């Protein structure tokens, strides 16, 4: 027989205003097994906890019921209290009389009655509790960072600086990501490459960082501290160890039809190429779809001219298997496809470009060597219209576009406008905007500078239509502040397209069993208090993969994710969840149904010798890997023979609770 203590919390007036806490404590005194029952203003306070510890000692309690807030708030607190008084932490039950009672009831009598019933259920369950001991599992002291943009690079550097091994898996031939494509950065207008490339070099030279470029995660198994990843390193047909990055092959290649992804496909490149001058690794890659050798079996000019002998047409994809303790998702973003917004004539004229395309046009290493010219005829433009919120802030049920604000467009459009006016004062710049959203340090000052110092014409309103008229683009839009419709004959139109998660994010999320929102952004464990952790243990979030953010925010979040990774990898072993599933071997018939529903792959089968009064012999029995089991309970409700049970939440415990409620 258990000796149970009941502790009813007032939570100030949170509970006491709707529940007669004294009556609850009094009523519970009559329950079987309850030897002590009391109430207190704040059970979670140091005094409240001292009261619990004292009662455990004075009355020799074997278990306690705390009637308070949700176990999500203070279960851990009261378990620690119990442990410090010599009890097993799983001999603590919480009756939630706040969120599920006082907060949702108005009537004191009703609230009190329900609180008593909830407390009785907890007592009934506690009668069937058994002390549980959590197991431990070791931690592999290496992190995997998926994505080699600024988010991934920063997280990798911070983790590596703490002394842990980090692998960066990057799907494109070079690290650097979107930031490498940017010309200047707001609000300081410093050159993006100048601040990014030192970090790329640092990552490449760091003895703890291993960059696996042109590679993708193929599969993943395991759990926090013990992941096993299979990485597919795509054949680049160049021996990375031999290639010196001299670039002779890229000059000799006669194929000139491939589109340059780094320059947003605005120009052509050879079939063998190095994405950009500062690429890391500085190694060429062959685009097999464009390569004449792969298409016809001839050519091979690159091979003939490579003094290092690095060209290897026979190279195959390589599978790398590695163990990791933590995984960081830093998969970043891409701009949405602007072609679905043809009211802005994106499909009709090459002079309508997206902001990222414009970024390349303005960049000295871009397709026009930094000269601002119209893509159609390479002439200097005189009138440029910027349109903001293209595909952002659309309603959830809209046919196209995203419901969220992409956050970075107001600032980069102000930047573009300013850069144009700075370099080409003869060009008139108009910006159509809905709201200029510029929260951030020195951000609003930056935007005002565009208006006041650089004379950028900001027009509050959206463009309804862009039509091609000869060599010009006729822009028709609203000027809401002046109450008129405006018509501008522009030479170029720049669309501030919304950003969306990289297309690989969805399949990666499935592989990691990391939850995502409806827009494919990874969900954080808590939107305010755990912003860089996924709800899946051991998976951390860095950069735009979690939600739109600019470079300073990305770097800050990358550092925060790294701190969490370091906190995990610094441990030698992890305490597992004690509330795990367990099969009763006397009842299990090895039907495999639990294995099929287990989302964590924690259940396997083994042939075990069974000796019961009814049966003697070898039988196939379900076995739960306790380090992998998360205690979700899917197997227990699936098991047709009732063999599967969840420790701490057994079927008998749950039924006792129900019985107590229905009594």
């Amino acid at each position: 027989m258990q000796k149970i203590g009941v502790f009813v919390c007032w939570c100030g007036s949170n509970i006491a205003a709707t529940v007669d806490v004294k009556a609850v404590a009094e009523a519970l005194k009559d329950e079987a097994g309850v030897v002590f029952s009391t109430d207190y203003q704040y059970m979670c306070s140091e005094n409240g906890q001292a009261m619990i510890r004292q009662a455990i000692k004075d009355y020799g309690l074997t278990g306690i019921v705390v009637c308070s807030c949700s176990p999500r708030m203070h279960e851990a607190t009261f378990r620690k209290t119990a442990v410090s008084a010599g009890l097993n932490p799983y001999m603590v039950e919480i009756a939630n009389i706040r969120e599920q009672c006082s907060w949702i009831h108005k009537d004191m009598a009703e609230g009190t009655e329900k609180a008593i019933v909830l407390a009785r259920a907890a007592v009934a369950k506690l009668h069937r509790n058994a002390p549980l001991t959590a197991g431990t599992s070791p931690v592999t002291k290496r992190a995997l960072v998926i994505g080699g943009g600024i988010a991934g690079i920063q997280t990798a550097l911070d983790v590596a600086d703490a002394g842990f091994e980090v692998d960066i898996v990057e799907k494109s031939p070079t690290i650097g990501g979107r930031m490498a494509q940017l010309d200047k950065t707001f609000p300081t207008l410093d050159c993006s490459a100048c601040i990014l490339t030192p970090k790329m070099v640092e990552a490449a030279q760091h003895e703890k960082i291993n960059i696996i470029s042109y590679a993708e995660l193929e599969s993943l198994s395991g759990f926090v501290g013990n992941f096993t990843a299979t990485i597919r390193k795509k054949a680049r047909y160049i021996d990375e160890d031999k290639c010196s990055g001299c670039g002779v092959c890229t000059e000799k290649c006669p194929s000139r039809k491939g589109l340059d992804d780094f320059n947003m496909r605005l120009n052509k490149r050879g079939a063998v190429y190095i994405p950009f001058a500062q690429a890391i690794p500085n190694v060429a890659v062959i685009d097999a779809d464009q390569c004449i050798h792969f298409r016809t079996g001839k050519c091979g000019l690159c091979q003939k001219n490579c003094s290092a002998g690095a060209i290897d047409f026979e190279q195959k994809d390589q599978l790398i298997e590695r163990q990791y303790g933590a995984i960081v998702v830093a998969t970043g973003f891409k701009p949405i496809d602007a072609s679905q917004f043809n009211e802005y004539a994106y499909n009709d004229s090459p002079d309508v470009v997206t902001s990222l395309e414009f970024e390349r046009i303005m960049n000295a290493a871009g397709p026009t060597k930094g000269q601002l010219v119209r893509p159609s005829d390479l002439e200097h433009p005189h009138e440029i219209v910027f349109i903001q919120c293209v595909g952002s802030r659309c309603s959830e049920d809209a046919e196209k576009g995203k419901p969220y604000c992409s956050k970075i467009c107001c600032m980069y459009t102000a930047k573009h406008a300013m850069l144009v006016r700075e370099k080409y004062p003869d060009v008139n710049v108009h910006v159509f905007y809905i709201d200029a959203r510029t929260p951030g340090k020195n951000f609003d000052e930056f935007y005002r500078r565009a208006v006041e110092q650089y004379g950028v014409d900001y027009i509050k309103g959206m463009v309804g239509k862009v039509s091609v008229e000869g060599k010009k683009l006729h822009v028709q839009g609203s000027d809401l502040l002046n109450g008129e419709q405006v018509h501008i004959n522009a030479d170029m139109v720049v669309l501030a397209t919304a950003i969306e998660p990289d297309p690989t994010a969805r399949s990666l999320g499935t592989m990691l069993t990391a939850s995502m929102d409806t827009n494919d952004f990874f969900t954080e464990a808590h939107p305010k208090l755990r912003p860089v952790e996924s709800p899946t243990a051991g998976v951390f979030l860095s950069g735009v993969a979690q939600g739109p953010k600019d470079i300073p925010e990305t770097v800050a979040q990358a550092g925060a994710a790294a701190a969490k990774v370091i906190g995990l990898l610094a441990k030698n072993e992890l305490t597992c969840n004690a509330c795990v599933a367990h099969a009763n071997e006397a009842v299990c018939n090895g039907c495999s149904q639990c294995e099929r529903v287990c989302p964590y792959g924690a259940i396997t089968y083994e042939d075990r010798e069974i000796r019961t009064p009814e049966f003697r012999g070898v039988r196939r029995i379900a076995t739960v890997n306790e380090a992998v089991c998360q205690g979700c309970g899917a197997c227990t409700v699936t098991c047709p023979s009732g063999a599967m049970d969840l420790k701490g939440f057994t079927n008998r415990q749950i039924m006792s609770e129900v019985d107590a409620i229905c009594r």
Partner: protein
Amino acid sequence: MSLTNKVTAEDILRISGVDASRCMQCGKCSGACPNYDEMDYHPHQFAAMVRKGKITELMESKALYQCLSCFACSQRCPRGVEPAKLIEAVRLSVIRQKGKNYMTADALPEKLDEKIPQQALVSAMRKYSK
């Protein structure tokens, strides 16, 4: 000309099925409108004014009969507000009142013209009379 019955924002919502509170006043509708300059109130103003309950002003507006019902505003709206349906609902609220037909059969003969397709006249009758 005075209007006999009081029409409320709820009536417009019921007739149009459009929730004007979804409008974020971006002005894309009015930016798309091909007949903007002829209208005294513009598509985005219909959304704003219905929300504020200024239905009487809209019912007395010229815009009701200048709107081409081309639905460009509805088609472009990023928030699915469909201003064209709001304008249509206000127009119907006027026309459905006694003696408020904007166009009658008597007016047709003088509008007959070789260049006007008959379809347009039929549409106009549907649009401007009970």
